[in-house]
């Protein structure tokens, strides 16, 4: 088996369109990369930017949001909010050193099982090419204390 990096991708799919499309892809026996972990939400507009940041911070290499096409939102305009937030979030992620290809928003209707396959495969290939996202551990009194102990231990071993 080739020793290649398998990206972890967290996917937020809306209940009314993209999640059904993923279901359809399954019942149609379409094969696609097994790298996504799907979280079902009622609407793409429910995706708080905090969810995306948290996914990255907890080890995701990519985050995909799937919603209804413009004009098709079950709640009228949730997907437009998702689109606007995604635009600004992408800018912030880029400035924070997280490449654009790691974050993606796609409109996939309930009938587009095949689009789930192409989008997921394409995203997995792109994130695989980028490699893993190595974010440092956030400091906390515990982390800092552990680090201090490690430094002290290393110094002791080094005879300093």
């Amino acid at each position: 088996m080739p020793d290649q990096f398998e990206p972890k991708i967290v996917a937020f799919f809306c209940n009314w369109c993209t999640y059904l499309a993923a279901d359809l892809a399954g019942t149609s026996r379409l094969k696609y990369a097994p790298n996504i972990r799907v979280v079902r939400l009622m609407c793409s507009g429910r995706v708080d930017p905090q969810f995306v940041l948290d996914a990255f911070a907890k080890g995701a290499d990519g985050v995909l949001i799937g919603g209804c096409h413009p004009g098709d939102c079950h709640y009228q305009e949730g997907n437009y909010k998702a689109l606007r937030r995604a635009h600004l979030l992408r800018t912030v992620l880029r400035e924070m050193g997280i490449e654009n290809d790691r974050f993606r928003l796609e409109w996939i209707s309930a009938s587009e099982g095949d689009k789930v396959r192409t989008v997921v495969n394409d995203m997995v290939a792109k994130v695989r090419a980028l490699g893993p996202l190595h974010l440092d551990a956030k400091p906390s009194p515990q982390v800092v204390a552990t680090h201090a102990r490690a430094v002290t231990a290393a110094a002791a071993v080094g005879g300093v």
Partner: protein
Amino acid sequence: MSKPKVGFYWCASCGGCEEAVVDLAEDVLRVVEAVDIAFWPVALDFKRADVAAMADGEMAVCFVNGAVRTSEQEEMARLMRLKSQLIIAFGSCSHMGGIPGLANMTDRETLLRRVYQEVPSVANPDCILPQERCEVSQGSLTLPALHDTVSSLDQMIPVDYYLPGCPPPVKLIKDAVTAILQGAMPPKGSVLAPDVALCTDCPRKDSKPERLLVSAFKRPHEIQIDPAKCLLEQGLLCMGPVTRSGCDAACIDGNMPCTGCLGPTGRVRDFGAKALSAVASIADATEESKIAGVLDKIVDPIGTFYRYSLPTSILFKRNRHDGNGWH
């Protein structure tokens, strides 16, 4: 009975928090009547050795302002934790990392190079950078080490309470001091300010339209600001919807938008994410190109949304690694 001992210390901050204590004006005399100020480097001549000589927990409470970014600040923070029963993170820098926390967008080496070599007003032909140790004819000189990452106080030591603000409003300081003296403190970990958004208490809230939509975001110098109308409606990036109240809308009264110094309300983990979410939601556009036209006008998104809170945000600093080496 002896009076409880109180300490003040500052780490990486501008000094405005010390001013806020002085802003208590005559009320500071009431505080001094009730407590013994045992350590306050800005105002009183006590040294580190005086604190080190105290018994553990000898001080009742210590107010620490500023972020932590040097080995000296880290050491002092630990010492205060040891000697004080309560630690109160005082001000935005101590609470969330503050303005110094924006240094987490770069790393130590880039920062030192920029400040000591590249800035146009600097003449440093020998490229001399500050060193932790330097030998001169009189002996050896030392400086504290500069950390690569700026931290909030609670990322270094356990913190009991937070007094938010840049600087904390006098009213909140008075309320906190009164609560401490009366032993009427809320649960540990509380932020000592109301847990509602500033919009709730905004004097202009009645002018905020039912459905707020902004077609162009502007900066304060670009427009004549109407002193009565909701600032967001005027296109200014006011952080009121996501910022904790408690400041009596001081900036709004000064006809300037809120910049978010009191931090988020209790249930929010990442101020900047919530701020960008709120701002993006009110952009008056539905097509991708038009959305870009409205939102790309926002100058310095990180400095706007994470002005005071980058070190305590979910990502906390700019990612410097790439995924090379895998494929």
